[in-house]
């Protein structure tokens, strides 16, 4: 049960997926059927999360996208299994002078001209499934899977970092206001003043040379945590700002006044009263942030300021493939396709999630139907 549903007037807050569900629908029979469908069709409305889930379930495109994303994640997680049992090589193992023996035919992994072997699929027992990567003769499929792990790690962990920082800063800024808000907001403005790529690039290049030595934190220049932290930090204002705005609205609500009247301290109000009401927004932001992070990682790695060679990420693979773009464009197309599919699937799923969680979309829906109970809808 959503915490705010226990309080009078709680339905009238933005970001509450339960708010719309409590409206009464009496108009267009088609729409009525849809909204009834949301309430399970059996008269039981369920909690806001259950309603959101039912809405999401009806969005087949978003679920398909989720399926694609999960498939990519699972494949990448199984990278060591593929590397050890199928390809029999590691992501950084070179095979420059190696020869493949296939049905009496001998193929060089890297020709004397420097051209690497193309996709073999299963003709070599899964070795060089997608071919080899240029002069070093590394297995492209193994690097793709391991590269996916790096890209996904950075995408997801950086999104977690952004979310934690943004939520904490937005709560402090929005709840306390005054000088706290001024200091935090101006700090955000400083980061916001720089274009994301430029700022990340500058930080990435500096840290890629010397690593990070910050108090107890010691990160090597090759550590995946460096691009992760950079991306996590630079995107913080983009999430903290809208959250802060919502908190400004929420802190004026009756349930907050009630909590104050009951003697709740600031921490309890921020984390137990306000935060749950931000969850739907946070979830949507988090999802979309993963896609943005992966794109930024690809850009940084391509420019040499992200994942450091020989470790692979999809960005570094594009960069490496670009050196052979003329003779082996597939080396660029493969990681490019991986990024495209992942980002597309995350974005489509994120959109679906937003549609399911965001009451504003419901407001628009009901306003069009002309049937919503205006008292049940909070400020938009």
């Amino acid at each position: 049960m959503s915490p705010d549903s226990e309080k009078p007037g709680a339905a009238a807050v933005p970001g509450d997926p339960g708010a719309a569900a409590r409206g009464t629908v009496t108009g267009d029979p088609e729409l009525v059927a849809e909204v009834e469908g949301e309430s399970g069709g059996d008269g039981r409305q369920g909690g806001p999360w259950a309603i959101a889930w039912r809405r999401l379930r009806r969005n087949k495109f978003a679920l398909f996208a989720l399926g694609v994303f999960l498939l990519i994640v699972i494949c990448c997680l199984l990278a060591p299994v593929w590397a050890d049992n199928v390809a029999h090589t590691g992501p950084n193992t070179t095979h420059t002078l190696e020869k493949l023996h296939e049905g009496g035919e001998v193929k060089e992994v890297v020709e004397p001209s420097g051209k690497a072997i193309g996709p073999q699929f299963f003709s070599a027992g899964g070795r060089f499934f997608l071919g080899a990567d240029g002069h070093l003769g590394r297995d492209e499929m193994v690097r793709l899977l391991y590269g996916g792990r790096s890209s996904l790690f950075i995408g997801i962990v950086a999104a977690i970092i952004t979310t934690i920082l943004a939520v904490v800063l937005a709560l402090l800024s929005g709840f306390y206001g005054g000088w706290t808000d001024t200091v935090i907001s101006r700090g955000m403005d400083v980061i916001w003043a720089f274009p994301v790529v430029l700022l990340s690039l500058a930080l990435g290049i500096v840290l890629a040379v010397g690593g990070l030595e910050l108090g107890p934190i010691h990160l090597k220049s090759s550590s995946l945590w460096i691009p992760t932290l950079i991306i996590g930090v630079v995107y913080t204002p983009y999430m903290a700002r809208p959250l802060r705005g919502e908190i400004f609205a929420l802190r004026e609500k009756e349930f907050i006044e009630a909590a104050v009247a009951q003697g709740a301290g600031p921490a309890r109000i921020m984390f137990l009263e306000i935060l749950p009401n931000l969850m739907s927004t946070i979830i949507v932001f988090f999802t979309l942030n993963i896609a943005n992070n992966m794109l930024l990682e690809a850009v940084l790695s391509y420019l040499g300021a992200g994942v450091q060679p020989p470790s692979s990420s999809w960005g570094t693979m594009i960069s490496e493939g670009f050196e052979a773009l003329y003779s082996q464009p597939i080396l660029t197309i493969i990681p490019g396709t991986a990024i495209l599919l992942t980002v597309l699937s995350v974005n489509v799923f994120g959109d679906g999630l937003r549609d399911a969680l965001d009451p504003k979309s419901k407001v628009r829906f009901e306003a069009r139907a002309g049937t919503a109970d205006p008292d049940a809808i909070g400020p938009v």
Partner: protein
Amino acid sequence: MKRFSFFLLIALIAAVSAVALAACGGGGSTTGSGPSTSEPEGEGTPAAEGEGNEGGTLKGAYTSFPDYMDPQISYTAEGWTAMRPVYVPLLTYKAAAEAEGSEIIPGLAKELPKVTNGGKTYTLFLRPGLKYSNGEPIKAGDFKYAVERCFLTNSGGSPFYTDIVGAEEFAKTKKGGIPGIKVNEKTGEIVINLVSPRGTFNNELALMFVAPVPQSTPDEDQSASPPPASGPYMITKSQPGRGWTYERNPYWAKANGKEIELPSGHVDKIEIEIQRNQSTQVNDVESGKLNWIFDPPPTDRYQEVKEKFEGTQFTAEPTISTYYFWMNQTEEPFDNLKVREAVNYAVDPAALERIYTGQIVGTQQILPPGMPGYKKFELFPHDVAKAKELIAESGVKDKEVTVWTDSESPNNDAGTYYEGVLNEIGLKAELKILNPDNYFTVIGNTSTPNLDTGFADWFQDYPHPNDFLFLLNGENIQSTNNQNFSQTNVKPLNEKIDKLATELLGPQQETEYAELDEEFMKEAAWAPYGTRTLSLFVSENINLETAIWNPTFETELTSLEFTE
């Protein structure tokens, strides 16, 4: 069919996205060029010579900006090719190919030096009436200042001149001048006194390091504002990291009646841009947007370009060079001979030949083929098992080391290969890839942390084995602009190098240099892996037949001319 179309669409979008992303690293494009009839400024008539199609603006490209655009400090092939038409030392090399290009001729000096006092005194005379490109007269004292400026800027070339009387003291104090050089401004006489005879000193007087510059030139890097020229061209614009432009020097000696045996060049203007993408460079040469590129075509396209254009727009040019991995002998684990031997056993020149797509020929010694004193040997046949044994014996297994290389293809791949080799034999290597613009500056600074091992190359400054072996002389280790990256310092071998440097090169000396080469390899001072073949690639409207590839300066920019 629908499924096929869908996936085709996805692949197409991915390719476009990837290319768009990749394009972030691309540079700008250039406009076309061709002969023109621009009139040079200045007092003389800097007419071009030869029978080619004179005039026009030549457009060229480098992949990275030279280390320095300053004659006293630059110590790379990039820098020397760029400054060859701008700065002329007292002696210089003939603008010719192959062995003829290693012939020393008078530059700003009237004639070759008179050597007296048992090889310890060199006397030269500056040609009278010479002027820099800004109209300022070139003085005999400018040569003295150029030598001093070498030391004042901690130039990597300064070790060549420490045998001049008082130079070593000047290197320490940086005060009081070098008393071993005496000049007479009236007669233009320059007398150089050496502490001991030096068999290579004529060669060293022909190096870019001692090309005269005005005494008002600050003793710090002048890459953004290069000193005025004494050669046929002057640099009118220099933007480090982006490019530079040459125009004819209106005060070029030859254009003003002086008999210098150097060509005046054919084109009126040369514009060099930094184009990071070597494949784009090739495309631009093919389309005529660029007329010449400094770097060879990328490995991805080398064979294709060679097959398509060899003899018409392309020539492969073998060089006298050594590509190698250095190992810092002052730090663990490479202070241990067994570890260095292990690396030599583990590095496979055959694999690196493939990585360089046939643009190197494998070798395992310091002196390259074609260098006097070269005698082929192979102390460390490829044997990974033996390398692993040696690492186990040395007790440094899992020791963390940093591998340095630059991002220029295929040096980056060579670094990646090397990192893999070190990991395979039991070390824990971490790769660090730097921008080629400042790679050698960073690894040449001994205070840079974690300078463990990495890629380097060396091209001959002059055809003398000392030019390679002096790199391993421990007396030449410098805190900045260091060239002895392995910081090798074996006293008996230092003494041998010093002794041989005092002698003129003859058969006996060549034998001794060959022995020295082997002795250094017994110390496993480097892990050499190849000698490089470079190339000259020009646009269709450049006359390839008259283009000169000099063994020291590579492409002679003054030799490039447009066809009709």
